[in-house]
């Protein structure tokens, strides 16, 4: 099977304290989140993450046969995002443009699509970019918690730093969060406990279990478990249901960078890959909109050799920050606009 040949991430400089967005609306939140500057968006973040991934991979971008964008915050309903990144990466016109939208599970789906394309022999290398900066409205649920970031993976069969030895999907029709075409913010309706148990937990557990059965692995074979992190409690609940020790879980980032949507699991994965040793096994499970994809990865020797080409790491991004206030956030997100005349 194919694997990760290189990876790179980008986290914006700016932070908003989650409480600053919650308290004005008589709500409460703790921690902080990463937010885009006024001139940033999912495309600018994707550009920086993907350049780092290509440099880490050490391949010629012309070898990339397909570019996959996984996001729930595309600025367009009709118009591709991928070609802009194809320009900045200088891909050939023959590379396929794949915008995977519609869910925070999109990047995981994009990864699946990329693996299928390599397996079929249609492409030699693919680049998968998860990038998120979801729209929020004053008092909306995500205003306090939605964070912004991007993560990119170059996938191929040569120069692998981490093999992907298997993938599994579990999906049902389940509505927890949504954003209609006419809305400019993400909504949710019901209680947290319903969404938690019948949304996140059920699908993450089913996908992870199904993966282990499919590839004949037990939970003891895994050194790390990287789950989608809408908040810092949910991964622990899934781990408990699976009988996995919470020590395996990737560190909490949702109260530091926020709920990173499509790139949530992949940002955490980057942090794990930064320290994983060869032959260590990683369970990676995403979740969004009633869909969950689980992957099993094995770090290889090249993960050590290629370390010198790594771009700015997650650890560095966690240190590098500048706080903005809620008013600045409202102006940056264009929620508050100056009168036209």
């Amino acid at each position: 099977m194919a694997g990760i040949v290189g990876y790179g991430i980008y986290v914006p400089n700016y932070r908003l304290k989650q409480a600053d967005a919650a308290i004005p609306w008589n709500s409460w939140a703790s921690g902080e989140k990463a937010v885009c500057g006024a001139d940033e968006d999912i495309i600018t973040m994707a550009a920086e993450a993907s350049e780092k991934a290509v440099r880490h991979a050490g391949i010629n971008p012309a070898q990339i046969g397909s570019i996959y964008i996984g996001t729930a915050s595309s600025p367009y309903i009709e118009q591709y995002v991928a070609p802009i990144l194809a320009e900045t990466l200088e891909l050939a016109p023959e590379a396929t443009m794949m915008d995977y939208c519609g869910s925070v599970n999109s990047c995981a789906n994009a990864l699946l699509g990329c693996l299928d394309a390599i397996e079929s022999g249609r492409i030699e290398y693919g680049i998968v970019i998860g990038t998120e900066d979801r729209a929020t409205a004053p008092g909306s649920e995500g205003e306090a918690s939605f964070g912004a970031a991007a993560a990119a993976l170059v996938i191929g069969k040569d120069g692998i730093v981490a093999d992907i030895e298997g993938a599994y999907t579990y999906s049902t029709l389940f509505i927890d969060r949504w954003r209609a075409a006419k809305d400019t913010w993400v909504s949710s309706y019901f209680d947290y406990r319903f969404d938690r148990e019948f949304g996140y937990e059920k699908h993450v557990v089913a996908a992870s279990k199904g993966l282990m059965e499919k590839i004949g692995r037990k939970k003891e074979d895994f050194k790390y478990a990287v789950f989608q992190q809408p908040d810092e409690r949910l991964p622990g609940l899934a781990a408990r249901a699976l009988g996995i020790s919470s020590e395996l879980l990737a560190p909490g980032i949702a109260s530091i960078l926020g709920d990173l949507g499509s790139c949530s699991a992949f940002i955490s994965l980057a942090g794990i890959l930064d320290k994983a040793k060869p032959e260590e096994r990683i369970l990676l499970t995403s979740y969004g909109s009633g869909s969950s994809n689980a992957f099993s990865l094995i770090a290889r020797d090249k993960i050590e050799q290629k370390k010198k080409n790594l771009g700015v790491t997650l650890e560095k991004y966690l240190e590098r920050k500048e706080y903005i206030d809620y008013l600045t956030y409202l102006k940056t997100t264009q929620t508050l606009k100056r009168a036209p005349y």
Partner: protein
Amino acid sequence: MSAPAPASPLFWRFNPEVYRLIGTKCKDCGHITYPRKKICPICGSLNQEEHKLNRRGTVQTYCINWTTPPGLEPPVPIIVVDLEGGGKYQGVITEVTQAEEVKIGGKVEMVLRKVWTDRGINIYGYKFRLVEEG
């Protein structure tokens, strides 16, 4: 003054310059210029070849603009950069609001940023960002 919209030939023509940083180098006097030209603006020579600008450079000069066009909130710090490998670039520096943050001779690198929005379409281009030490 109404400007051509993003979905116009003007913007499409500039894709190689804006995204791939392709300028022109004069084979006779060595001057590097941008956008691509058929005639050297310095010596008038017709001997021109394509040249890809480097994304890193040092600050030649800068200013902080507080009187901006409608729709663009100030301050906008403007910068002229001496690029590694030759050529200059005029543009904007991002993540800076105070004059004290920028120094002539300081190192900067290009990062893709959203430069403008018109009719709901975003226009992207390279801005500069200070290179962090270490």
